[in-house]
C-alpha cells in the first residue's frame, strides 16, 4: 500500500436524477487499512455514492479516485471488491460455481481462494447447492464470498450483513478486521447503527450530504448522547421523535 495516497478520495461528488440530488456534494477521503461505516437511512445516497466510487455510475459533478487513480478506469476494478445491495448471484449455479466464476473474472484460478471464502462464509458444506435453493441469508453470504474471493485492497460493501445471523455476522466483522489490519480499506454502507462500533470511523449521511464524520465515541460525545441513533438525529437536526428541531434565536 502506498503510504500517502488515500485508498478512496471523493471530491465534490454530485449525482442528480431529474430534480433529485441523490448525492449532493460529498468530499470524503479514506485512508488505507481502516473500516469505515457509511451510515444513513434508506434513500440518503449511500448506494449512489458507492456506485460512483466503484465507477458504475457517472457523477453529475465531482471526481473520485481509488488508490490515486481517477475513476473510471477498468484497470482499477481488479483492486476493488464491490458487493451490491441485492444478492446478485446466479441462482442456477451452485455456491462453488458462483464463487469460481467471479474468481475467474478477477483472474484467480486458484481453488484454494474459493475454498477460503467458502469457509469464511460458512458455505463449505453447501458448495454443491444451487444458489436458488439457499435462504436469503445464505445468498447474502454467497454474495460476500464472491466479493472477497480476489482479495482486493479496497472493499465497497453495500449492506453486507443484512439477513445474516448474529454469530456469522460476528465472524464477518472479525474477518473484516483481519483484512483491515492487513491493509485493506473497507467502506461498509448500512442503515442500521448496531454495527457502527465495529468501524474505525463513521460517516453519517442524509439527503446526499455528510452530516458528521468521526469515531463512534467522537460522534456520540459531540452530540452529547450515549447512543448513535440519538447522535444521528442530533446531527440531522431532528428531535428524539424525528421532527425538525425548532431554531433557537440568540
Amino acid at each position, binding site marked *: 500500500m502506498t503510504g500517502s495516497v488515500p485508498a478512496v478520495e471523493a471530491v465534490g461528488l454530485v449525482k442528480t436524477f431529474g430534480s433529485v440530488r441523490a448525492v449532493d456534494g460529498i468530499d470524503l477521503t479514506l485512508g488505507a487499512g481502516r473500516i469505515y461505516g457509511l451510515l444513513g437511512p434508506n434513500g440518503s445516497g449511500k448506494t449512489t455514492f458507492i456506485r460512483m466510487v466503484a465507477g458504475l*455510475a457517472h457523477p453529475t459533478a465531482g471526481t473520485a479516485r481509488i488508490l490515486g487513480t481517477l475513476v473510471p478506469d477498468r484497470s482499477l476494478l481488479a483492486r476493488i471488491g*464491490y458487493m451490491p445491495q441485492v444478492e446478485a448471484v446466479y441462482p442456477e449455479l451452485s455456491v462453488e460455481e458462483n464463487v469460481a466464476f467471479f474468481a475467474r473474472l478477477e483472474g484467480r484460478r486458484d481453488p484454494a481462494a474459493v475454498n477460503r471464502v467458502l469457509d469464511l462464509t460458512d458455505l463449505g458444506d453447501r458448495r454443491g447447492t444451487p444458489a436458488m435453493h439457499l435462504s436469503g441469508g445464505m445468498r447474502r453470504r454467497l454474495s460476500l464470498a464472491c466479493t472477497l474471493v480476489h482479495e482486493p485492497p479496497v472493499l465497497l460493501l453495500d449492506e453486507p450483513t443484512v439477513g445474516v445471523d448474529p454469530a456469522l455476522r460476528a465472524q464477518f466483522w472479525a474477518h473484516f478486521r483481519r483484512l483491515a489490519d492487513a491493509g485493506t480499506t473497507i467502506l461498509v454502507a448500512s442503515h442500521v447503527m448496531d454495527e457502527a462500533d465495529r468501524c474505525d470511523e463513521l460517516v453519517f449521511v442524509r439527503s446526499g450530504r455528510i452530516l458528521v464524520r468521526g469515531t463512534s465515541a467522537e460522534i456520540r460525545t459531540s452530540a452529547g448522547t450515549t447512543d448513535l441513533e440519538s447522535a444521528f438525529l442530533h446531527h440531522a437536526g431532528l428531535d428524539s421523535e424525528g421532527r425538525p428541531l425548532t431554531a433557537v434565536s440568540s
Partner: protein
Amino acid sequence: MSIVRILAVARRIIQGFRRDERTLGLIFVVPLVVTALLGWVIRDQKDVTVEVVMVNSAGPPGQRIIDALTQATIGAPEGIEVISIAGSEEAARAALRDGNGDLAVVLPGALFDDVLAGRRPHVTVITPGTDPATDGAALGAFQALMATLAGQLAAATGGVAVIPIIDRETVFLSASADALDVLAPVFLAYFGYFFVFILTGISFLRERVGGTLERLLATPVSRAEIVLGYGLGFGFFATLQVIVLTLYILAKVDVPALGPLPAFTIGLAVQSSGSPILAFLLAVLLSLGAVSLGIFLSTFARTELQIMQFIPLVIVPQGLLGGIFWPVDRLPDILRAVANVLPMTYAVDGLKAVMLRGADLGDAAVRLDFVVLAGIAALFVVLAGATIKREVA
C-alpha cells in the same frame, strides 16, 4: 365462491394493465399491425409472368406449335410467356437452373407419331422444383396453353384435338417433393433464431434486473467480453440445437415394432441436394445474430413478459417477409426493401440455395448470404455492447 373476490381479482388485472402501456399496445396494436402486414403481403404481391423455355424435338410441326404458343401468350392475361427456345432438354434445364425461366416444355420427337397412331402424346414439363407452390402456379398457368397445344396437334395431324399427357420433372429435388421438403430447411433457421433470441433476451434481462450485470461490470470484464462470452455460451446451445434439427430434418430411422409398440419412423428424410455442413453454418451464423439481438433488445424490457412482446415485432415479420412462405421478389416494393435488411431473408435464401439447389460457396449469392449474416451478427454485437453501460471501457 364470492363474486366480490372474483371481481377484485379481475379489477386487479385491469388496474395492472392500465399502467402497462406496452402490454396494452401488444393486445391492441400489434395484432392489427401483424394482420395488416399479412394482408399487405398476400394481397399486394407482384403479379409474375411465368417464363417458359421451349424445347423442340418434333421437327417443323413442333416449331409451328411453338410459334402458335408464343403468339397465344403475347399480352395474354394468364401471365405466361414463351421467352426462349433451347436447343436441348439439357440446355433448358441449365436455363432454369440459372433462373432464366420458370418452366420448360419439351416437345418429344415422337409427338406426332403418337398422335397419328391414335395414342395420347407425352410432353415433358420441367420446373425448378425448389418451391412446390411456385411450381404449381407455373403449371396452373401452363394449363391455359393446353387448349392451344391440343388444337395445334389436331391441325398438324388433321385429326381431333388430343390432350397430351404431361410428364412432370424437376431440375432440383424430385417431382414428388412436397412443401415439407422446401419448408424444413428454412424452419431450421426460423426455429433456431426464435428460440435463441428468446433464451438470450430473457437470460440477459435477468442479468440486468437481478443485479448480476452490475456485479459483472464491477469486475475487470469488458463489455465486448460479456457479449462474446454470451455469444459463445448460447452459440454452443444454438449449435447443438441446429445439429439436432438438421439431423431430424435430413435423416430417417425406421424403428421396428417392439412388443405392443407399432413400427414408427424418426426423422423427416427431407430431400436435400447440398452440403449439410454449409446449411449448418448458415443456421449457426443466424443464431449468433439472434444472441446479440436478444442482448440488445433486453435493454428495452423490464420484465420477461416484455421480452415475449418482442416476438410479434421481431420474429413474426421475419417469418412473413424473409422468403419462407413467399419469394421476396414478389413482395411489394416497400416490404421488399424491409426484407432486404432482415437476417432471415439471407438465411432463407442461403439455406434454400444450399439444401434445395445444391449450391456451395462457389455461388456468389451464397457467399453474399454468408457475408451479410456475419455482418448483421457483428453489427448487433456492437449494438449489444453499447447497451451494457458502465463508466469504464
